[in-house]
């Protein structure tokens, strides 16, 4: 797994506030710059979820349009646009996955998880930070079933109950795996995340 998308975001991390201000002024060039910074990262995330390049591109387009249309609610001085963009992208992708899989869509829940106001006070350069490299290494260290439950939660939007059904495991076992995986990740990330 390479760090290329994150490395691409490094050079732009410090300029988020200026970029957000330009997006709020409806500057199309700012949208182009936003895409240049986060387009590949967004596409990679969505493709990981939907596993179809054509659909992934459609959802990337939806994601950037959603950000473009909702950026007025974003605090240019406090917001971290990268994490917000990824949250929107993930929610678009998971919502698509649920709609095609006959699963219950939880659009209202997503509305609350990718709201711009929730992404203030997050470190603007977090996607290019040392933490990003640490979490990759931490995921690699997890046991396979622990990594699987984290990925099912993040990339497929499954609750613990849904994971238990998918994996054919008792709910208690899955909860244990989730709890253990999160503890291990926190431990690996250490104070870096907690103190951020």
């Amino acid at each position, binding site marked *: *797994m390479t760090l290329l998308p994150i490395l691409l975001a490094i050079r732009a991390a410090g300029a988020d506030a200026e970029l957000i201000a330009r997006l709020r002024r409806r500057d199309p060039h700012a*949208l182009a710059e936003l*895409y240049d910074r986060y387009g590949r*990262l967004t596409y990679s995330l969505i493709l990981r979820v939907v596993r179809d390049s054509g659909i992934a591109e459609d959802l990337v387009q939806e994601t950037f349009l959603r950000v473009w249309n909702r950026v007025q609610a974003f605090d240019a001085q406090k917001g971290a646009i990268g994490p917000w963009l990824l*949250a929107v992208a993930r929610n678009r992708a998971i919502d698509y996955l649920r709609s095609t899989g006959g699963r219950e869509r939880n659009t209202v829940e997503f509305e609350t998880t990718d709201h711009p106001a*929730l992404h203030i006070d997050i470190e603007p350069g977090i*996607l290019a930070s040392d933490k990003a490299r640490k979490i*990759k290494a931490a995921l690699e260290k997890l046991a396979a079933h622990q990594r699987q439950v984290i990925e099912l939660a993040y990339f497929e939007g499954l609750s613990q109950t849904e994971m238990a059904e998918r994996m054919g495991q008792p709910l208690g076992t899955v909860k244990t795996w989730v709890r253990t995986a999160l503890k291990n990740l926190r431990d690996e990330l250490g104070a870096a995340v907690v103190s951020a």
Partner: protein
Amino acid sequence: MNCSELRDHYELYVLGVADEPERSEIRTHLDRGCEVCTAEMKRAREFAALLGGTAMPAEPSPKLRRRILASVGAEERRFGWAPFLAAATVLSLCAAVYFIGRERDFAQEASILRDQSRRQTIELTRLSEAFAILNGAETTVTSFGESQPKPKGKVFCNPALGVLLIASNLPQAPAGKAYEMWVISRSGQAVRAGMFQAEADGTALHIERRTLDMKTTGVVAVTLENEAGVDQPTTTPLIVASLALQ
């Protein structure tokens, strides 16, 4: 539930996949401004953001960027055929103007060449007729003007082909005038034998195609007349070639 019991559910809540009753419990804590839960939520959102960056890197198609920008009404400057088409159009117009001009030139040149060709054909025909008279077995030659300063030359008469006049030192006819050749019988009857002009160098070649009775033809003469021609000589002949009696 207290905050420590919710500890393993903040990340799932942020991802929108927390089960009940933990989801409602966290919401209740947040609604009442729980500081612990608020701080944990901030940490969980950072955790979620970091997870988003762990997907295997992939490359979208180059068209996607243009699609997105076009969807908000922003036109990207990009490579296209438009500048080349515009340049090609300008070049085509220039070429059209050039070739139309060239075509006009070619047409003019072709017209000139056709005229030259037509004149050369006429000249060749005349020369061919002249050679026929010159080479005719029955052709007789009569010189004129030998004792005069001008004009001088020869008259070739062939009974079947006609009369060939070759002259030099012939002055240019004044405006409205032309030289007229006469075939005059021995009895003095003059018959018109064609109009001609002298060349710029004073030479002239004139052919009158007709049959001749060499026994009755006595003189070939040339007078200066109105260019429309006259039925009988009105001026003193400049050229008089007296044919020998056959």
